[in-house]
């Protein structure tokens, strides 16, 4: 199973963290700090896998973002690499050529999409179209609601409340 997945920038800013097992906040912070530093110092041609503590770490860089996940000893590294890629593909399709800013400003969407794709650290649905359809369905539900909210005050529109 996948133990956790992280997205962080080249500057080491964590953009998304998903933990698939129970772990304390302190430990999380330590893992984040250590692992981000470790991955950032690796050079481009190096292999995408690392033995780290009790995990196998699989990471890949897409533009300014590192996608990094930790899997268990018996898990398949190459496939984990493709889990990352499939997630990137889904994000890309959903946001239309995704960039780091999309994930910063719509972080909740990134989490929702991940929930449709991975659950309990395992692949729930490997079909890109099916995941996208599920996310778009729930977006459609949101849009219905939006009509009612059109009458919001002007202050609110400017984000002043």
């Amino acid at each position, binding site marked *: 199973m996948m133990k956790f997945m992280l997205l962080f920038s080249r500057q080491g800013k964590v953009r998304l963290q998903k933990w698939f097992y*129970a772990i304390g906040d302190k430990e999380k912070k330590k893992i984040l700090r250590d692992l981000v530093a470790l991955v950032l110092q690796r050079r481009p*041609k190096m*292999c995408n896998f690392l033995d780290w503590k009790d995990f196998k770490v699989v990471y890949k860089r897409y533009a300014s973002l590192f996608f990094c996940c930790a899997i268990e000893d018996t898990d398949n590294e190459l*496939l984990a690499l493709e889990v990352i890629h499939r997630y990137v593909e889904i994000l890309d399709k959903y946001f*239309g050529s995704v960039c780091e800013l999309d994930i910063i*400003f719509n972080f909740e969407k990134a989490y929702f999409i991940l929930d449709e794709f991975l*659950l309990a650290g395992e692949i729930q649905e490997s079909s890109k179209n099916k995941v996208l359809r599920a996310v778009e369905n729930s977006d459609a*539900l*949101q849009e219905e609601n939006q009509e009612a*909210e059109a009458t919001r005050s002007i202050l609110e529109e400017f984000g002043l409340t």
Partner: protein
Amino acid sequence: MPAVSRGDAMRGLAVFISDIRNCKSKEAESKRINKELANIRSKFKGDKTLDGYSKKKYVCKLLFIFLLGHDIDFGHMEAVNLLSSNKYTEKQIGYLFISVLVSSNSDLMKLIIQNIKNDISSPKPVHVNLALHCIANIGSVEMAEAFGSEVPKLLVSAQANESVKQSAALCLLRLFRTMPDSMTYAEWASRVIHLLNDQHMGVVTAAVSLIHSLSQHSPNDYKGCVSLAVSRLSRIVTSTYTDLLDYTYYFVPAPWLSVKLLRLLQCYPVPDEPAIRGRLVECLETILNKCQEPPKSKKVQHSNAKNAVLFEAINLIIHIDSEPNLLVRACNQLGQFLQHRETNLRYLALESMCLLAGSEFSADAVKKHRETVINALKTERDVSVRQRAVDLLYAMCDKTNSEEIVAEMLDYLKIADYAIREEMVLKVAILSEKYASDYTWYVDTILQLIRVAGDYVSEEVWHRVIQIVINRDDAQGYAAKTVFENLQAPACHENMVKVGGYILGEFGNLIAGDSRSSPLVQFNLLHSKFHLCSPATRALLLSTYIKFINLFPEIKPTIQNVLRNNNQLRNADVELQQRALEYSQLSSITSQDVLATVLEEMPPFPERESSILAKLKKKKPASAQALEKDEEKHKKSPASVENHVETKETPPPITNSNSVDLLGLGTPAAAPETNNTNALWDVFGGSPAPEEQVIDVNMSKTEENPGVPAAGSEPPTTAANETQYLTKFLFKNSGVLFENDLLQIGVKCEFKDQYGRVGLFFGNKTPTQLNHFSASVTLTDDQQGKLVVATQKEAPSQIDGGAQVQHFLNMECVSLFSDAPVLRIRYNHQGAPHSVSLKLPVLINKFFEGTDMDATNFFGRWKQLGQPAQECQKIFQAKFPIDASSTKLKLTGFGIACLSGIDPNPENMVGAGIVKTKDLQVGCLLRLEPNQAARMYRLTIRASNGVLSQTLCDLLEDQF
């Protein structure tokens, strides 16, 4: 700022995120966040009830702040409120907040669970899915208790739609991991298994993960999945990439599902049914074949997905381990990858080959790649790949290539990355010991190891070389000579000084004949290093010096001068001071005879598992295991020192007078060393009996409550760990029976026919007197009349501080008995009563006498004792590596005579003996058959008395 793509935008949130991004400093960011937190808090506390949208927006902001790494201590209630909103979007944010932050605030759990309950039974699948995702994300015990019975219903329900089933399967998996024992779902097993046949690939993909975990937990309930998994896999691998539409990934049909199925099959042995087995082998062949086909795409995703399936198939081939053809093909395929331009593939090929090296069918094929692997070690630019190369070299090492591999590893060690040096040192040490065909090579290798990587040579490594040199007569002279030469280097590592000090102290006499290494030269050489060393090493050197006084009386005055030097006698380090003082006294007061006895050459170390291997196991369980598997095959290696006789030993007890041990403070390796210091302690304590030196300190130390007990209560009783020490004394007659902070009890027994004499030695470890001391033996009802125990010499009722007293018992074995008699000791220490109960190491096997006989005789008697009641047989797992010489040693120690040339299979051990009691003498025959492959033993004992067969069998079970 990017255009917010779709869905309902929370403008306020976007503005807030922009603000944070525009902050120039950490302080500015904190300020902005605090302002926002204050704002949200006032909104939540305000009189005006917030509408759903605002609540959602603020909860989302809080979530953002939390994910930035700040603590959030409010807003949970508002998030829970969102759950009951009938707007999907609000519900969704509520669930996200709770999934991420709930652990910090669980008093809301009841409310949350109630809300999930509502959603899970909602008619809208999207709501059910939200609820399931939340359960799976939190996965707490409360969740498992609340929904453990609800979720399975969704999974097997005919009405639930596909995506709900998918979520339910993985949700259940998470709950199962949380509480595996209360959720085995045996009653659902067959319906869950049949999800493998579901026509919806997504459902199968999710369900296999669940079935995999359930199968690992209760394989029998789920074994039906094997045939279904094989046929599903077969359908996938034979399909073309167009068949599976959405589930084809870069021209590879359903790679995720394939890998999951291949992993599921690794939970079970190869299917017995020829048809299923054949189909599985076919699948594996097809996967191997596909790798030879030209790629359908140049994209890395294509090759990754294809190879992911291939590597998993290879794992399954290794798991099956009975298809030589597949194993060799797998190995060849990996061989191609070893030189692939993709670093990832080289890494994985090295990793998988480590496993193939452990299989007898592919081990030779792996060895063909030795050159390539050595080359990888030298040329790979990525340390993690080099690490894998080291692992593989270690795994493929055997007698034929050990010298080359060890040499290459030593060579690489000079430039190796710091991160992997320590592990490499351990590996070199293990390999050189394991495959040493002659010990000069071993000694050279270890000394070279210390030279090139001294800082990374752990205590275990240099302790081990000393253990081996002491146990091997043929290595001692060479070791002394080589270590002497190494010490002559102008700069040598402190570890070299330790090894040198120890070995010359023991065996310096072997090279003293040469004028270039005369006693004085040896001493001056060692002493020239003395001042550069740490106190622990200096302490060791002082011990070497006193041994020199014994070995070379001619340099006694020189050494005494050094010992009496104020640098030593007034050293700030108490240990050094004490050693110098004691040793100089010892050398001047005692006679040469006493000195010779005290400083006698070290007895051979008990054979035991290499502590290095234990250390490597701790560091890398997997790779050490690989070696163990390998070890069985090579058990004939000359290094019999590797036998795992005692896997777990407690550190030697440390008394105040010898708190720094000569050989390794507090490590298992040091055990017998304590003899020496014990003896010293005897000398100064004024107690005679140099024979107590044989006391071997291998005891488990048990806790004793030193506090004064409340009046009227029982004195604190200490019971030694019986099984552990009794086991030890099954095979020997002397040693330390018990030890705590106050008291040490040694035992020495002699047995002849039905008579036994047991000497007990009570040593007071405290500086104060122990009084009201008494020792008595009690017999159980069962033993009454079967064993007679008489006290021949009683210990005095007072033991002075630091003194040792003796207590002798005479015994006669009247008839067969099965349990050991109990010794009870009571004494007062500083007014507080103490008592200790322990079993005496007197068991029926002590009255054994080995008998010699030839094959005809043996088999004749064996047949005579053919009645079922006379035979007892046990089959048990080997506790230690199967090794003939250590087994023989144990059997002889047990009292039985080992007979060779009787059993047609030389691996098997047979033995014969007679148990002598006053009333009867019982002849007894034994046969012990090891099974190397299964790591099992079968023990058969036949005796004219069936009870005896049973008793002996019970004693010997699990001892090998």
